[in-house]
């Protein structure tokens, strides 16, 4: 195992191994401090970045951060590495790779072709040498398009998940939040419920309800009940209308075991969902959530910094051709991302790293009430992510999730970003809005009065 160092003035900064370089090169982060692996000074942080900048990208193929023998995620990363795709950047150091990513030469087609040649560790390393605007600029050049009933991730578009959660899964309450969101034109990525009760009959009930809403209004959307993958498999076996299968995933085998999943179980779920052939224009059937800090909280990070472990989860995701992936960035809590500065940075890193790896990344732009953040901070992150071409964002009524007790974005925010940045929703969904007569002459979705036909049609039908 190599030892790395950098002399700065009279100080020699020594790093015992590659994962120490990576941890010390990370921006200051409460989770890495909690794990006891963060740089203990700002100078040491920059020293680690200087070491990283001079390191050949190939070093990550030679030195695994978590052993191949004991971790199936490492085996997945190594075994699936595409050395032909990697060739154009194989000679570069991490610093050269960063500069190249920012260059005009690295355009959308080049980056798409490169994706299978990049490992999570390479991508995480490059992100540690980037400013926030670099993370935005490079991500904006990446394009990862997925299809089920809508097409998500097309250039110049912004999709959204409608999240109508209710603390007791009350059908009327969920319907109310769903209809409210539809009136804002939200939900073209997915209408996705976090169930309060994770059992098969309860999930089937919710799935049937969402499917009824979809078919009643003939909306080109897909639905998802974000239960455990084993619950969804059983629901499929019992004939439930499962569009997308959800699962939380993480970047190590042990952390995934904490979630009750393995790569083989995910493969089984993917096969089960594909067998239903419910997608009309594509068969991306998986929906994954990730988030920095999940491996540490499961005591399954093996001394690897939380951002790098998070990026390893994207290797898991891309093995299953997901329709949607999102980081829950500010949800996991201030012991991992302390304040708005850390949450913002992490959101941009997660999006950049995933996109570079060819993963269709979205984001739950969010925070908890014990983090040092508020809605103003979410405004900054959502605008940067939308500019970076994030595949989708999550929205709840009035930004307040009454079931999970945290704040995400409001339905208002989705519309505001779409109109401000001229990024319409998925084309199939936009066509539906158009056909329903909801768009004005500038193709905006205006605030329809309570007694207008648009509102009455939706709310009246729901009562029928």
């Amino acid at each position: 195992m190599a030892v790395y160092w950098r002399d700065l003035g009279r100080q020699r900064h020594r790093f015992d191994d590659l994962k120490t370089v990576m941890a010390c090169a990370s921006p200051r982060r409460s989770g890495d401090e909690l794990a006891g692996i963060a740089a203990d000074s700002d100078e040491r942080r920059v020293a680690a970045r200087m070491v990283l900048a001079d390191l050949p990208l190939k070093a990550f193929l030679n030195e695994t951060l978590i052993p191949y023998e004991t971790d199936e995620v490492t085996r997945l990363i190594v075994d699936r590495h595409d050395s032909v795709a990697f060739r154009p950047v194989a000679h570069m150091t991490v610093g050269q790779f960063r500069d190249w990513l920012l260059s005009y030469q690295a355009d959308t087609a080049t980056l798409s072709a490169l994706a299978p040649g990049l490992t999570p560790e390479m991508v995480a390393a490059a992100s540690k040498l980037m400013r926030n605007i670099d993370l935005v600029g490079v991500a904006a050049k990446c394009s990862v398009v997925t299809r089920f009933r809508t097409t998500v991730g097309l250039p110049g578009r912004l999709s959204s998940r409608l999240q109508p959660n209710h603390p007791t899964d009350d059908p009327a309450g969920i319907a109310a939040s769903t209809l409210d969101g539809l009136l804002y034109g939200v939900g073209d990525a997915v209408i996705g419920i976090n169930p309060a009760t994770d059992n098969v009959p309860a999930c089937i009930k919710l799935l049937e309800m969402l499917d009824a809403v979809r078919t009643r209004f003939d909306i080109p959307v897909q639905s998802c009940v974000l239960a455990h993958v084993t619950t969804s498999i059983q629901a499929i076996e019992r004939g439930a209308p499962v569009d997308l299968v959800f699962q939380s995933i993480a970047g190590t085998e042990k952390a995934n075991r904490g979630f009750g999943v393995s790569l083989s179980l995910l493969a089984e779920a993917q096969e089960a969902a594909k067998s239903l052939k419910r997608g009309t224009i594509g068969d991306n059937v998986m929906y994954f959530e990730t988030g920095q800090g999940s491996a540490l909280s499961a005591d399954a990070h093996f001394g690897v910094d939380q951002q790098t472990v998070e990026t390893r989860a994207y290797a898991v995701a891309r093995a299953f051709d997901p329709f949607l992936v999102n980081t829950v960035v500010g949800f996991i809590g201030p012991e991992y991302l302390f304040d708005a500065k850390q949450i913002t940075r992490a959101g941009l890193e997660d999006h950049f790293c995933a996109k570079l790896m060819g993963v269709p990344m979205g984001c739950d732009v969010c925070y908890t009430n014990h983090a040092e953040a508020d809605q103003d901070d979410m405004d900054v992150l959502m605008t940067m992510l939308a500019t970076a071409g994030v595949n989708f964002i999550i929205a709840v009524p009035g930004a307040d999730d009454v079931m999970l007790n945290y704040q995400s974005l409001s339905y208002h925010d989705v519309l505001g970003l779409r109109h401000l940045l001229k990024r319409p929703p998925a084309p199939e969904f936009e066509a539906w809005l158009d056909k329903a007569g909801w768009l004005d002459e500038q193709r905006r979705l205006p605030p329809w009065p309570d007694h207008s036909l648009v509102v009455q049609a939706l709310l009246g039908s729901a009562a029928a």
Partner: protein
Amino acid sequence: MSDEQQKDSGPKDPWARFRSATRARIGLGRAGDGMPTTALLEFQLAHARARDAVHSAADFDRLAEDLAPLQTLRVHSAAPDRLTYLRRPDLGRQLDVASVERLASHPAAGGDWDLLFVIADGLSAAAVQVNAAPLVHACHERLFGWRIGPVVLAEQARVALGDGVAAALGARLLVLLVGERPGLSAAESLGAYLTWDAKPGRADSERNCISNIHADGLPIGAAADKLCWLANEAARLKLTGVSLKEDAPSLPGPGNDSKKQTPDLIENA
């Protein structure tokens, strides 16, 4: 359709009939694409209250008065202040040195208690202030013949801190009440964790949890009923955790959405 007809065909607020079904902020209206002023300020007020609940200190003197005539005993976690508490969950789970000594020399130590209440401020001072004492009193009324120790009041404390307290005082069943992470619609929500034979190192899967105890959630009386039912079952089976099933529908455990999955969230939520 004329205005007159429209008025006849629907209620004034088309959301009125939906609002009773959910506390979600539906039908807020729009100012262009933005939130109308009233809705914006209501949101800010709710967020301010939630943050105040996280950052304000519980008034343990007043809580002790509210608990009278029950005897109380004060301890502190190894997290000296709120900032450290938020950053270092590990310290919030341990007693500080002075508390360890106080417990060891306390007359209640080794008291062979059937049950011990520990009240931890957790993430909501307001929850503890408003709901903890009434719940403890309500449980005392329901637990005839139980040897119940003094109520331990724990500052800057997380759930696992109770394990060390129960081990030091000698209690078969630990009931730890903790201020839950406040949401915008529930800043005073209390959680109750029951742990049989509590001692440092117990896993979350070895506890039973009652969540969402507050006036608009699970009210005190119902919470006390449920808690005492679980306490009796725990005493009968001599265990708590996943093997002690409630007859109520099962709530999500580890393995669900990541949004509820991490141990710290189980502890906070």
